[in-house]
């Protein structure tokens, strides 16, 4: 395959539903692009055990794991070599990198663009069910995840009241004024058009 694969960085706080959303995105891409469209999934976990990889594998997909650290900081030097190895072995059209819940995607994106020559899309998930409880205590981290996002997905909307969703929209746009915001409940089937908007072209 010629050219670099595009990279989607799936960002968002711990427990915001990144893994569930990832599986939805991959299912949709397989349906939209066909079986020949190769997707490589990279799971980054700060823990030494990868529960998320097991869930993705249960869904029928293979995963490259980067454990016990974060590719935005402690494992940053290992990210591009890992992607280059994936390119050699799988020749993917797309790489989806699920970041840890404490990762700041901007440093990852910068690294991938500047030193790897990749085109990067940052998708950031926000957990609607506990936004109000964490937004002040974790303001620095949440801001760092939302600020560079190309799209923000407000997830678990079934667990939040409409006024809370409005508040989240306002908070997100205060951080990243022009970012598109979509709402979803990734634990249920998601509208394909919405998934297309999330993964982009």
């Amino acid at each position, binding site marked *: 395959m010629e050219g670099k694969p595009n990279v989607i960085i799936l960002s968002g706080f711990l427990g915001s539903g990144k893994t569930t959303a990832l599986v939805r995105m991959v299912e949709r891409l397989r349906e939209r692009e066909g079986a020949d469209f190769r997707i490589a999934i990279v799971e980054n976990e700060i823990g030494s*055990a990868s529960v998320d990889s097991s869930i993705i594998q249960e869904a029928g997909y293979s995963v490259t794991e980067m454990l016990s650290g974060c590719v935005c900081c402690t494992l940053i030097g290992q990210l591009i070599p890992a992607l280059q190895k994936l390119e050699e072995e799988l020749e993917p059209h797309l790489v989806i990198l699920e970041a840890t819940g404490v990762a700041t995607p901007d440093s990852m994106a910068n690294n991938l663009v500047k030193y790897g020559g990749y085109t990067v899309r940052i998708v950031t998930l926000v957990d609607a069910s506990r936004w109000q409880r964490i937004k002040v205590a974790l303001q620095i981290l949440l801001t760092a995840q939302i600020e560079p996002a190309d799209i923000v997905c407000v997830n678990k909307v079934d667990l939040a009241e409409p006024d809370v969703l409005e508040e989240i929209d306002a908070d997100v746009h205060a951080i990243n004024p022009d970012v598109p915001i979509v709402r979803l409940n990734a634990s249920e089937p998601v509208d394909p058009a919405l998934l297309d908007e999330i993964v982009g072209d």
Partner: protein
Amino acid sequence: MSAMSEEHGPDCTCGCHDYEHEHEHEYGHEHHHEHGHEHHHHDHGAAHEREVDLGWASTILESHVHDQAATVSATVRAQAEAAKSFEALVAALKLIAQRVESAGGIVGHIKAYARSGESFAHASVTDAQLAPACEGDVNLVLGPDVQCQLVVIALLVDLDVLEGIVLESLA
């Protein structure tokens, strides 16, 4: 709390900012984040790994601090005569969440996965006030042939406190 913002001098050589925050995104717009000399530091503690007897199971426990997040990972292998169901483990995960919040911490993510033959179960807890999200066969018995992994990540709580909460809740 390990994350902190500091003002650095103009000739700072801290090494934290070897790159400019400038890159093009897929939408074609360009970000240029000038963070000046205010930095968000990521502190990381050394990892500790040890084997612990829970009474009903043995577990390999690994714990470390990553940035603000205290992280405990465990691989649990039950003893045959004292096997519990995955459902009982989920109750323990919820107890961990309650105890983290009682200790003034914030639950990051508490999750567990177990597989036995064709059966699997998965649980996720993000909030002591919300019901755990489960998939698969929660009646799965955690016998000695079952590989069960769990990860507990919490913020604003000391690592040794979190380790104590995890062990007490799983026992």
